[in-house]
């Protein structure tokens, strides 16, 4: 596997430096792996995201106005250590507390938990909302065992808008919890990505097989099936989401995200979107807005995921706010 790197073992710190360069002054590196907006309003409730790198543009590419205030970046596919999270926490905290928003993985949960304890010891108020949108990873009765996958993109965007308006940390927690609880995703893997340091693929899959319910760290799919058409795949994934416990039906409005895991082309995402839209229209479900592209990736992994966020009026108002970041930018409505 050819990759454009200097030292494969230094890929993570180098990409974080490149990211700070990308932001061209708007973002500061506040510690190894810790980045924060240079300009955070004085009385703002802060939003901190984070996780392993190698999934660009998340998480560190989600910093910006109307998005997250800072990010804690780990090594490739590895949650950031507590001290990195703490550095980022100190930088974004403006006295009104910090919301930790990240994907529900054992490594992230443990490292953020330790960081939250360290922050609390310094008098920084911290609350946490875990993202667990992947319906394939556990039954609805065990949400706290579900993984966070591409649904984190609409959730972080909504949280970013919420953080700009929330009067305190508690209000932010409840707004973001609402966004999280209304988001469901499921994905499919076609081919593995590779780990930069070893060059090895993250899993194996036959030439004619796909993994339904894959994870964004290259975890194998929950069900291995034969390759199928775009339309059949779209139906299968939409069915999996709609069969979950969140009622989405006629008259409801959703945000739709078609996320490429890396090397799956926008062409394929658009062809899947076509079918997803047809299914939703058929069911009388309105599409409020659409996101599409490689937003939560796993190196050059092939595959995609579909996410729906069901919007109530509060979430619509949050969605309509402008935002800007490497990963997602939107004009106001």
């Amino acid at each position: 596997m050819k990759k454009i790197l200097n030292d494969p073992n230094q890929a993570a710190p180098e990409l974080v430096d490149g990211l700070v360069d990308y932001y061209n002054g708007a973002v500061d590196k506040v510690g190894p792996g810790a980045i924060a907006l240079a300009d955070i309003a004085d009385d703002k409730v802060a939003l901190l995201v984070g996780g392993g790198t190698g999934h660009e543009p998340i998480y560190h590419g989600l910093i910006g106005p109307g998005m997250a205030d800072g990010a804690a970046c780990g090594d490739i596919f590895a949650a950031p250590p507590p001290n990195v999270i703490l550095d980022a926490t100190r930088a974004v905290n403006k006295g009104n507390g910090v919301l930790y928003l990240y994907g529900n993985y054992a490594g992230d949960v443990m490292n953020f938990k330790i960081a939250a304890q360290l922050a609390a010891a310094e008098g920084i108020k911290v609350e946490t909302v875990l993202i667990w949108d992947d319906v394939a990873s556990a039954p609805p009765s065990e949400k706290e065992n579900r993984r966070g996958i591409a649904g984190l993109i609409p959730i972080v965007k909504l949280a970013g808008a919420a953080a700009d308006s929330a009067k305190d940390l508690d209000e932010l927690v409840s707004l973001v919890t609402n966004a999280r609880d209304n988001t469901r995703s499921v994905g499919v893997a076609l081919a593995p990505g590779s780990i930069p340091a070893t060059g090895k693929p993250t899993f194996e899959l036959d030439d004619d097989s796909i993994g339904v319910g894959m994870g964004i760290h290259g975890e194998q799919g929950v069900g291995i099936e034969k390759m199928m058409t775009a339309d059949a795949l779209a139906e299968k994934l939409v069915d999996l989401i709609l069969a979950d416990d969140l009622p989405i039906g006629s008259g409801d409005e959703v945000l739709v995200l078609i996320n490429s895991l890396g090397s799956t082309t926008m062409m394929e995402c658009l062809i899947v979107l076509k079918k997803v839209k047809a299914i939703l229209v058929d069911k009388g479900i309105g599409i409020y807005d659409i996101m599409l592209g490689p937003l939560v990736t796993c190196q050059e992994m092939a595959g995609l995921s579909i996410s729906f966020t069901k919007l109530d009026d509060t979430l619509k108002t949050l969605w309509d706010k402008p935002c800007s970041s490497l990963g997602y930018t939107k004009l106001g409505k």
Partner: protein
Amino acid sequence: MDNQALSPVEIRDMLIAVSDKIIESEALLSEADRKLGDGDHGLGMQRGFTAAKSQLEALEPKTAGDVLTTIGMALMASMGGASGAVMGMLFQSGGMALANAASLDASGLSQFLDAAREGVCNLGGAKPGDKTMVDALAGAQESGQAAIDGSTSEAFAAVAAGATDGMEKTKAMIATMGRAKTLGEKSIGHPDPGAVSVSIIFQTMSDYVNQR
């Protein structure tokens, strides 16, 4: 058999040996994680124990706790990932129990393991049977308690055997924690990578103690 307790300097040298062994096991550990997770466990361990080794080499330890919390902090700060938290916590909680211990013998080893197990289980919520490194750690801890009255070197050998035994048991388990949990039955047959690490760690300690 040698019943002498380990001095802080010996503990340090033992952990440098552990570091070398883990660093050289990178490929094996990553491969184990490719079966059940995202294939990076060896990389994280290598990163952590490389950082730990250079801190240990610079350390002039006064107590057993000094050495053990130093390696714990180094792992915690440099690794990240699930294993950074649990391996860091293992040595940190364990080391705190020996904060003032001038040396490490069978009883000290058992105290270390009791505190290590408690710290790790509190942090991550895993129990034995969940197919994590806790299975190996619990195996080590239980063997350590049973060996409390024996010689230092016997205790290290027993703990290594207990860790390896706990690791072996993970092969038959279905993962319920961490990234492998979505694999369900497909996780059967493969040992948990973190448990493999724990087994290597205690085996290397035992080799050091029994060969000095």
